[in-house]
């Protein structure tokens, strides 16, 4: 399994366009940080930094998802991996690990930029600023992985990356969350159904990170969002016919 992860990370490292896009995003983040710090508007910088850290799911999540699955499904390397002795379950876990490694590394670099720029500019920021950036980054990584895992089910069910990529984009832009929120609201007001919007991942995550001690049970919900899609991916992939 580690061999597959290692090989894929090596392959991703060789894709120039992947790094050009990454560098552009880091550059934009750095420029925004530098601009806000240099003007001395630290309040504005803190707001901006928190917004950036909270939206890493969109830019880095999409990049990670494309990097892990796009070329792989096109070249059918999964078939080679399975034919060379990996089990299907190991393939799913390999993809999960790859996504996690890339999401953590890319998000952490962005967070590091947001934290380093004010230090370089000798801006006196409260410790709470740095912890807020850390929490937002962790929240983004979790969100990325949940959306990644759910979209992964589509990959293993269809072996086509395109549908899953669209799904990931819809998740990251909160389109699907929005649809469910509206649906649950409608069911609640029209038919008296209990309001289920609290069980959406965004709600569970937001309330947990806002007040962890009073929302400890949310961890169970978050874990279900993380693990259940992996299990479902394995299920749909177990007997999937793989073409040459």
């Amino acid at each position, binding site marked *: 399994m580690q*061999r597959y992860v290692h*090989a894929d990370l*090596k392959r991703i490292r*060789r894709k120039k366009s992947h790094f050009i896009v990454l560098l552009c995003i880091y550059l934009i983040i750095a420029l925004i940080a530098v601009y806000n710090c240099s003007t001395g508007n630290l309040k504005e910088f803190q707001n901006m930094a928190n917004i950036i850290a909270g939206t890493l799911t969109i830019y880095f999540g999409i990049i990670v998802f494309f990097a892990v699955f796009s070329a792989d499904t096109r070249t059918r390397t999964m078939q080679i991996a399975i*034919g*060379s002795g990996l*089990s299907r379950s190991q393939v799913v876990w390999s993809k999960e690990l790859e996504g996690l490694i890339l999401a953590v590394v890319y998000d952490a670099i962005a967070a590091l930029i947001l934290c380093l720029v004010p230090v370089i500019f000798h801006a006196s920021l409260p410790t709470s600023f740095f912890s807020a950036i850390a929490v937002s980054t962790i929240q983004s990584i979790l969100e990325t992985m949940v959306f990644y895992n759910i979209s992964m089910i589509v990959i293993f069910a269809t072996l086509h990356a395109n549908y899953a990529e669209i799904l990931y984009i819809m998740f990251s832009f909160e389109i699907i969350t929005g649809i469910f929120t509206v649906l649950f609201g409608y069911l609640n007001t029209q038919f008296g159904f209990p309001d289920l919007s609290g069980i959406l991942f965004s709600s569970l995550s937001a309330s947990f990170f806002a007040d962890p001690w009073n929302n400890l049970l949310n961890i169970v919900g978050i874990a279900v969002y993380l693990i259940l899609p992996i299990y479902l991916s394995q299920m749909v992939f177990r007997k999937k016919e*793989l073409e040459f």
Partner: protein
Amino acid sequence: MSEGVICLENVVKSYGSHQVLKGVNLTINRGDIFGLVGRNGAGKTTMFKTILGLSDYQNGTITINGGTGHENRSKIGFFIGKNFFDYMTAQQNLDYYCTLKGIKDKHEIERVLDLVGLSGVNSKYKNFSLGMTQRLGIANALLGHPEILILDEPVNGLDPQGIADIRNLMKKLNAEEGMTIIISSHILGELEHTAVRFGIVNEGVIAAEITEEDLQKQKQNVNITVNEKDAAGAEKLLHDNGIEVAAVTDVATSLEDYYFNLVGGKK
């Protein structure tokens, strides 16, 4: 007695209501060069896919090197298509597969590229011709000295020299490394030159197994060659014993003849 490295026992595979493999029984012996022939849709590719774990089957057992676990497939090298990344060179693509297969020896890449005649090619895969793609696919299959080699239509797109090179390579690997090789091909004449045992797949079963020696024994005809001008009246003249016989040649049944006699159809 020969040792079976790949054994299929009563393997049944269906796509919906359509049964593609109808109880396949096949044993590939260690050191064989086994040719699998059959018309399109006969079940050759499905058979390979089930061996490689890419296709689930409803009934039967597939044993590789005595075991049925997925890890038993690690000794198989296989060529099934164009599994390469456009933006990487041949070396980089093979480096990817070396890592995936856990091959540490970096000289391995040069070794296999040399074997298939691609050493020194530094262009990206997207610029490869069909023949180069085939060669790279075979190189990938050869990484790490596999015990068993499965090649699905390996000479498609190769020029006659390329076909001869691959044929010689197969024979060399079989003779020097004792590699067990399974090849499927539509080019029966070529397969006849390479393999020593053949399995004829027809309508989801192995309709017959035959060896190179069996083919030689199947000499059915004595070919009497007569001058072209005498051909029309040859039968009559033979009866009359009055014609000049230019040559008498033994003609062995070709694999192609055997195949068409068995499964029907036209050459």
